[in-house]
């Protein structure tokens, strides 16, 4: 079988996949991405390049993905619906595919009010589910959203999506995953897992609907670097669920950095045992150099 990307090959061969996140810099210096990429080389099967995450202007995910391709590393280019309408989004999918991007992850995106340009006009012409369906139709049927035909080259994209098992209302969370599968998503990366109980409830429902057979699920892991970061994520980042038990451990730790690392290790080992989870997506915010240790010690390498 021909695989569109290394990530698709790894997941299709039922190997436990690892992806890691690289946040582009607030500037045009490509060395910032090269530096992070070299730290992470060999630690993951593919690398997410975020798209102006939390609505803060950074080097574009397309630019970042090109840099990785030039380093012979495989990008997962992220695309949000916040800043582009359907014309620009479809055009960028074609552009990315034309230079060799093979994994794209589609999300609706953080609202502009959270970022450093809160006065901006948000686009939101599409939501993530609609965009996924459009790209699936471009890839498999050679048609644009309008119904117009693609004339020269369908974009061969392994389609990614995000999923948040911890957001309310809980009852709709698996329904939304199912909608993303129906729309055409091939793999999902979940919101960072801290609340293992809630994640297990979600996975139980996922398995009971056989959805783990229809999509590759990568569970999110974020090592907590400090108490400050833990508090920011617990109290201020929408959609993140850090249980009090973990908060207390970080609060009481003599060395919070070490405790955060240990917590991540424990979570990885627990998540690896959950049936239906096909890999991990590691996001270490401003702490990329911890990832090599984490994947080695948890036996992911």
């Amino acid at each position, binding site marked *: 079988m021909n695989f569109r990307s290394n990530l698709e090959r790894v997941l299709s061969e039922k190997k436990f996949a690892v992806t890691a996140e690289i946040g582009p810099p607030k500037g045009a210096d490509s060395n910032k991405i090269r530096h992070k990429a070299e730290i992470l080389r060999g630690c993951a099967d593919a690398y997410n390049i975020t798209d102006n995450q939390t609505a803060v202007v950074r080097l574009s995910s397309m630019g970042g993905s090109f840099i990785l391709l030039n380093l012979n590393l495989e990008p997962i280019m992220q695309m949000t619906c916040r800043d582009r309408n359907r014309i620009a989004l479809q055009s960028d999918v074609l552009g990315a595919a034309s230079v060799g991007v093979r994994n794209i992850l589609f999300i609706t995106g953080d609202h502009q009010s959270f970022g450093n340009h809160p006065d901006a006009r948000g686009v939101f012409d599409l939501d993530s589910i*609609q965009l996924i369906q459009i790209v699936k139709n471009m890839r498999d049927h050679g048609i644009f959203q309008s119904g117009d035909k693609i004339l020269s080259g369908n974009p061969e994209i392994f389609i990614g999506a995000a999923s948040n098992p911890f957001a*309310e209302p809980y009852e709709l969370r698996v329904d939304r995953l199912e909608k993303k599968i129906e729309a055409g998503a091939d793999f999902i990366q979940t919101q960072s897992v801290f609340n293992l109980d809630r994640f297990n409830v979600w996975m139980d429902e996922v398995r009971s609907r056989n959805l783990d057979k229809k999509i590759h699920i990568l569970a999110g892991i974020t090592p907590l670097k400090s108490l400050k970061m833990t508090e920011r994520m617990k109290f201020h980042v929408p959609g993140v669920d850090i249980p009090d038990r973990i908060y207390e451990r970080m609060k009481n730790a003599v060395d919070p950095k070490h405790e955060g690392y240990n917590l991540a290790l424990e979570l990885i080992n627990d998540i690896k045992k959950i049936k239906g989870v096909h890999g991990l997506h590691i996001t270490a915010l401003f702490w990329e150099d911890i990832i090599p240790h984490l994947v080695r010690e948890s036996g992911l390498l």
Partner: protein
Amino acid sequence: MIITKQKDINDILKSIKEGPVFIIGCSECATLCHTGGEEEVLSIKEFLKNKNINTTGWVILEPACNLLNDKRLLKKHNQEIQKAKKILVLACGNGIQTVSEIIKDIEIVPGTDTLFLGEIKHLNDFEKRCIMCGECIQDLFGSICPISRCPKSMLNGPCGGSINGKCEVNENIDCVWDIIYKYLKEKGQLYKLKEIKSPKNWSKSTEMRRVI
């Protein structure tokens, strides 16, 4: 109703710079919003007087968005208008433009900001309900509109950020997807959310500039 908010009084003063002024209010939305009714017109008149800016006259249009009616009503005030250097309009963005179609030789100063089409919840408490997108699809969501009420206009919501039923963008506002969810659950119609909703046809609102 068209919801308006009166501009900061000092900003209005800055825009007027010097008088005299003729003030125009509106009998409908701006009156109900307490931004351009008789009470507000007279209160601004008083404020300007204290700043040594005279008012040549004032009128409440019925309503300001009615061109022919405005022409009739403003004609009666023509002398007062001609004496003014500025026309202060306390009406919605539509009302301001209808006035400017009639009064062409005197500078017009907007005294309100037009916010949205919304509901009066309580006195001076308004909430957005419609963005006039040109194609109502509320039947898909239990007669609750996510296009106007979700900051991301998601048709396949909710997003992953709602907390305790509140919107991630503003904790004082209920997440519209939470409202839709609860309503449809109560009706036993949650299946309505399982179907993928297609991208919106925005040409319905942007291309239709005039209805005759």
